[in-house]
């Protein structure tokens, strides 16, 4: 079953056509890679899927539901989690609180419940906390749970973004260059982590990444964007040998 379908998605910024009629079908449970040179429109595509931009043209379908005009928070509540290429943590909140906020979309306690401290609210708080701690264990940040997020090292911040996105219990996870700024050891760990969460949490993952060995290793299918157009799509082996992809992105000799 397809989880996410893009039909002729275009996005204009002033005169610039950042995306130009992109079609894409992401199947349930797969890790789908999106590659392409800087400025190709990869991040813009994520921003459209998560409702930060409304596409100028085209349709966006998530689990048989059109979501083009939905707001960002409502899309999140449908179960689409994401991380950001330019890290967007809640800097002056603790690591633990960053992950706790992550579960906002799947928790209920409102203003008056919070004020009164009703039992149902306290129970929910406990759940939120223990789940956040589990996720911090998973990404190896449990020991730093009381640090301010902006005190973390770069690679740790990227992992914290993943933990926060997972707190939403998403069925579709969008990762925007999660390995950027990581050393090779961290990248190997990251690859394992992505495989593991896909398995354990039954996730479908959409991955934008520049590190080719990572992408070729863990993606089942890859789409290549260039100047807002999809120029190729297929399994890693095919992409590696595609003439146009080699010319525009991978470069001769890759």
């Amino acid at each position, binding site marked *: 079953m397809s989880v996410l379908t893009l039909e002729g998605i275009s996005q204009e910024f002033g005169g610039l056509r950042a995306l130009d009629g992109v079609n894409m079908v992401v199947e349930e449970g797969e890790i789908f890679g999106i590659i392409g040179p800087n400025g190709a429109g990869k991040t813009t595509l994520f921003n459209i899927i998560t409702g930060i931009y409304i596409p100028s043209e085209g349709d966006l379908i998530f689990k048989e539901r059109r979501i083009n005009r939905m707001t960002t928070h409502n899309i999140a509540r449908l179960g689409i989690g994401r991380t950001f290429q330019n890290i967007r943590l809640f800097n002056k909140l603790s690591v633990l609180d960053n992950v706790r906020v992550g579960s*906002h979309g799947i928790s209920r306690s409102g203003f008056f419940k919070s004020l009164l401290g009703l039992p149902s609210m306290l129970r*929910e708080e406990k759940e939120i906390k223990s789940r956040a701690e589990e996720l911090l264990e998973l990404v190896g940040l449990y020991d730093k749970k009381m640090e301010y997020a902006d005190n973390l090292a770069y690679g740790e911040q990227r992992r914290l973004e993943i933990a926060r996105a997972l707190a939403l219990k998403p069925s579709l996870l969008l990762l925007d260059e999660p390995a950027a700024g990581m050393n090779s050891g961290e990248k190997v760990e990251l690859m394992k982590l992505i495989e593991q969460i896909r398995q354990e949490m039954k996730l479908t993952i959409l991955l934008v990444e520049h590190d080719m060995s990572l992408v070729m290793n863990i993606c089942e299918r890859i789409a290549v964007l260039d100047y807002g157009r999809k120029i190729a799509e297929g399994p890693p082996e095919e992409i590696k040998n595609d003439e146009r992809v080699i010319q525009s992105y991978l470069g001769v000799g890759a």
Partner: protein
Amino acid sequence: MNGLDAAITQYIDPYYLRIMILLGINIILALGLNLITGVTGQLSMGHAGFMSIGAYTSAILSMQFGFSYLMALLAGAMVAAFFGFLIGIPTLRLEGDYLAMVTIGFAEIIRVFFLNFEPGGKAVGLSGIPQHTNFITVWLIALLIIALNTRLLKSRMGRAFYAIRENEIAAASTGIDTTRLKILAFTVGSFLGGLGGGLYSHYMYYINPQDFGFMKSIELLNMVILGGMGSIPGTILGSFILTLAPEMLRIVAEYRLLFYGALLVILMIFRPNGILGDVRIYDLKKRWGRKEVKTCQS
């Protein structure tokens, strides 16, 4: 309760009692503004406008409509909250700091309105307001507000308010309806502004529109910034310093504007997050804990 206050007066100089009462009122007002500006990150520069709505509404209700003290306070706060809600809806939808301009304008309109408002005594002001507010009532209410506020900020809602301040796009991506919660924070903050106003008018016996001008808004904003944006102990400390300083130091009272300006400059240099803005009980405990270990070893 007035009996109790009289008893307290026997032990405490009435001058200090007055400062304590004003401090309690300022804490309530500043906690309201802290929720809007310190916690949720929406710059409001017209908090005194909501204070005046609460002050006049509750005073007129208890003088002319026979409302009981508590009912008058509550009604004043609700009317202020309603106005906060009304101007919050269009303003908080927009990106950028429109709120600062709109709130300055709003507070000014409210001030001019009361300058021409017959039942409020126009520019002469309103006098003969029953003096129901005393040390006990102010501090009972202040402690209740502090407790509720603390609980709120530690809850799911509180974390969402902070998240909006820290990064609105990331907040929305976790499922937070940022517009709705900004309006909520603004409404609750305005409620506290109105509540503080009601306590104030029922203490002062006499109010006039100049009590709630731009300077008062800036004074309240300074309490929040000085103590530490978003921190409840910080806001209380800021209220404490800025309530006492003008009383204790004549020179501060005379050069208020200069004093506030200088204070902000010094703050930006030495503690840009405010005195207690980034101090957590957790860190203090850790530091004390370490010291203990050291003394054990030596």
